[in-house]
């Protein structure tokens, strides 16, 4: 039973355009959400996070939006760059157990020059 889902296994975007990666979750107890980026043969690296008290968090070209009522979050990358090509994982946790993350299956982003 997957509590975090990323329904798009892949996404292809032209350099300079916006990339939008989506994530859905089912557990209403989740109140902390993260995005990780993963290059081949490397472990995931933390990218950006958002807590449930916010609906938006921005860090440079990366913005995460949270829609609690829809149990949906998205990662926007603007402008997209070829170096952004990687697999992006969405993860969620609840403050009742901060150590336990639930990950989605990832979306492979390809940014074409």
């Amino acid at each position, binding site marked *: 039973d997957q509590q975090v889902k990323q329904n798009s296994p892949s996404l292809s975007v032209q350099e300079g355009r916006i990339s939008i990666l989506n994530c859905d979750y089912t557990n209403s107890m989740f109140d902390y959400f993260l995005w990780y980026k993963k290059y081949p043969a490397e*472990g995931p*690296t*933390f990218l950006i996070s958002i807590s449930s008290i916010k609906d938006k968090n921005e860090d440079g070209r990366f913005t995460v939006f949270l829609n609690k009522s829809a149990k949906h979050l998205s990662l926007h990358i603007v402008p997209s760059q070829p170096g952004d090509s990687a697999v992006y994982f969405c993860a969620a946790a609840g403050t009742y157990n*901060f*150590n336990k*993350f639930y990950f989605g*299956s990832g979306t492979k982003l390809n940014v074409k020059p």
Partner: protein
Amino acid sequence: DTAVSQTPKYLVTQMGNDKSIKCEQNLGHDTMYWYKQDSKKFLKIMFSYNNKELIINETVPNRFSPKSPDKAHLNLHINSLELGDSAVYFCASSQQGRTDTQYFGPGTRLTVL
């Protein structure tokens, strides 16, 4: 300097064998984790240790036994390997209560023949 290292990077073995994967972190973190990335690409937490004490133990066969000799190391021993154990195993570490500082190792690809 490698923050979280895992050895070996690749492990190919026969069914029924016993194998170990080692993990070390030099970040001074007090919490370490083992994740399994299965064929569907989901990253699932298996174990978490905080200051050498087991704090998360998911529904994992008891053929899997984590061992934490000290705060900087968390090894994973697997007995009687089965075909279904083939996956990529990631070690990670974080500072207690700081979910955004979870650092991952490069992963160990285990193939059971």
